[in-house]
């Protein structure tokens, strides 16, 4: 794991001192809100419906146990005893008071964390595959390059006033767990003729105008990556539309100019940016990379795992859903679901954070990850320790066995907290999860990803949900549109709207009808919801939702 250098620590300390003074000047009246707002946003501080919200960066989703313990401390001391993990691998505190925020930032700095560039029109926290360094299918750990990008983008003088926010995600595997095709820049570590390089995608994004990222370069060599990315951001910084915030993201720039023109502009600009890099970035990359060396995996028998798997059906169910193959023999990647049925997706109490930190310290090479699916990951655990880990999780309400199932729902905070929201998301997620828990059908249904956003900005990634739900305000009433067939993987696809939306109380019955249609039509338990949808298209689901009549009307119209 990366540890701060003296330079990093000094940089964060200076920044915190500046922000403390800015807060004081705002309170004393020397700064107006218009002057203060961009400063607080640069430091992750929002003002939402009921209170301030502090968004803390968890770079590429990686945390040590000491960092997780400190997040628990913040939750307890300055919030209401919990934190909310987000779809960008960050954590949000929903109840801080303005005067306390500088102290919160100082407490974060003690463990090498901050909230810099978690908001504002800058390059945001760089996200990565949450199985980085552990996945069996990985070409290389994406985190060293994510950390390099983080250092390059932090306080980058050219990129502090971009046309809009800018998000970068990195994956080291062909299997895309970082949703790189829905980012402004998506980077995939690839190998060609024994050399490591990067496939660079550009112009993906969700929100009001969802777009799938396009390939800008199939292979950028290691030594060219930073100047190349700098060229991309710099081309957009000039071309990007500042006249209209809905047209300002790079996806619109790419759409308006075409990928070929952008590629040629980037190539020209690259000739200039490349001159400014003298190799210091490559030396730095090697230093960073050394810090992400794999832990010392141990060789031990797996008998304890096998015995518990045979004897304990709860453990077996959890192991079947929450474990993923690890690259090291005898090891597993274990996901801790923050989606207990009926609870708020992504929330963890301070006590639960400490429990997870303790497990990581005792059994997990001191590492934790936050996934964009709002769960916590123990990336390196020996299988023989899993029965004990499971027992501890169970005792703390953290052993929900539902990863990838219908109740493992992504939901943005929605109108329960967010000032931009047009409807609530959390209660919809709670109701769906509770209903399918009552029905006891989620294992039978199998892999099915529901993603819910409370407004068109799509923080809940609804466009790439197998079932997507978008909450809107229709004449003063919450109303929910449903999309089907979205996919956030390497086969990324934007979901298609089923038809008219549903009032809040009809969303759960609508989801049930969609699932019934899937169960009736699937060729067997091995055909997932998404495969059935791809095979049959919208028709059977539309009929299930709106009846035969609607389908007939559509046919006549055609």
């Amino acid at each position, binding site marked *: 794991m990366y540890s701060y250098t003296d330079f990093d620590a000094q940089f964060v300390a200076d920044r915190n001192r500046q922000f403390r003074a800015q807060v004081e000047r705002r309170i004393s009246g020397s700064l107006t809100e218009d002057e203060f707002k961009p400063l607080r946003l640069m430091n992750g501080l929002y*003002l939402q419906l009921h*209170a301030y919200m502090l968004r803390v960066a968890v770079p590429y989703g990686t945390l040590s146990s000491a960092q997780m313990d400190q997040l628990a401390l913040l939750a307890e001391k300055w919030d209401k005893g919990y934190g909310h993990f987000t779809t960008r691998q960050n954590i949000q505190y929903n109840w801080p008071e*303005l005067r306390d925020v500088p102290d919160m930032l100082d407490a974060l700095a003690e463990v090498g964390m901050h909230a810099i560039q978690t908001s504002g029109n800058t390059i945001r926290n760089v996200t990565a595959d949450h199985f980085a360094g552990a996945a069996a299918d990985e070409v290389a750990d994406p985190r060293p390059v994510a950390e390099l990008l983080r250092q390059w983008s932090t306080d980058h003088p050219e990129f502090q006033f971009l046309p809009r926010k800018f998000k970068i995600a990195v994956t080291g595997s062909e299997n895309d767990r970082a949703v790189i095709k829905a980012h402004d820049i998506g980077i995939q570590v690839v190998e060609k003729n024994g050399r490591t390089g990067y496939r660079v995608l550009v112009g993906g994004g969700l929100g009001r105008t969802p777009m799938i990222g396009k390939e800008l370069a199939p292979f950028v060599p290691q030594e060219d990556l930073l100047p190349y990315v700098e060229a991309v951001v710099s081309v957009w910084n000039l071309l990007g539309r500042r006249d209209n915030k809905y047209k300002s993201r790079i996806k619109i720039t790419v759409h308006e100019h075409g990928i070929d023109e952008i590629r040629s502009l980037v190539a020209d600009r690259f000739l200039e940016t490349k001159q400014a890099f003298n190799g210091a970035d490559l030396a730095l990359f090697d230093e960073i990379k050394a810090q992400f060396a794999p832990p010392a995996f141990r060789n031990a028998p797996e008998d304890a795992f096998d015995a518990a798997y045979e004897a304990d059906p709860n453990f077996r169910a959890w192991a079947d859903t929450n474990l993923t193959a690890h690259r090291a023999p005898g090891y597993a990647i274990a996901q801790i679901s923050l989606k207990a049925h009926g609870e708020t997706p992504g929330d963890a109490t301070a006590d639960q954070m400490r429990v997870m930190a303790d497990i990581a310290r005792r059994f997990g090479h001191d590492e934790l990850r936050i996934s964009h699916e709002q769960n916590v990951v123990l990336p390196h655990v020996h299988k023989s320790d899993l029965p004990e880990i499971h027992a501890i999780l169970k005792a703390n309400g953290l052993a929900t066995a539902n990863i990838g199932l219908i109740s493992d729902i992504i939901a943005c905070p929605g109108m329960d907290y967010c000032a931009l929201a047009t409807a609530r998301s*959390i209660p919809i997620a709670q109701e769906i999860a509770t209903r399918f828990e009552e029905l006891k059908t989620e294992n039978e249904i199998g892999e099915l990803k529901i993603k819910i956003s409370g407004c068109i900005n799509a923080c809940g990634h609804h466009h790439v949900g197998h079932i997507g739900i978008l909450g809107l305000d229709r004449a*003063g009433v919450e109303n929910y549109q449903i999309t089907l067939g979205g996919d956030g993987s390497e086969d990324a696809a934007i979901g298609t709207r089923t038809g008219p939306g549903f009032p809040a109380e009809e969303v759960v019955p609508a989801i049930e009808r969609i699932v019934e249609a899937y169960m009736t039509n699937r060729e067997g338990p091995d055909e997932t919801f998404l495969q059935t949808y791809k095979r049959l298209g919208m028709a059977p689901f539309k009929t299930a939702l709106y009846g035969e009549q609607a389908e007939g009307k559509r046919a006549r119209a055609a």
Partner: protein
Amino acid sequence: MPKPFTPKVVTANALLEGDVIYLSENDTWVRELRDAEVLTDEAIAQMRLLDGQARPAEAVGVYLADVAPTENGPEPTHFREDFRRTGPSNYFHGKQAEG
């Protein structure tokens, strides 16, 4: 006939605490919608909005919100204002827990 004026309250978030506040008749910021001054005249509403906006050391994002006057005081006409005066629905936090 001109459209009848929908009654309003002046509302904002408190600078220090960040919570929802309303302007009362005696010019103090109050925490409960029922204690807010209900404005039934458009010209007066605009004046009171300016009054609120002139206090940037206390309030952030001052605006006029629609209400329906009732026997128990003003009630929100839109669900967003209802959540603002209540708190989130997933936890018993915010205004609902303070009353």
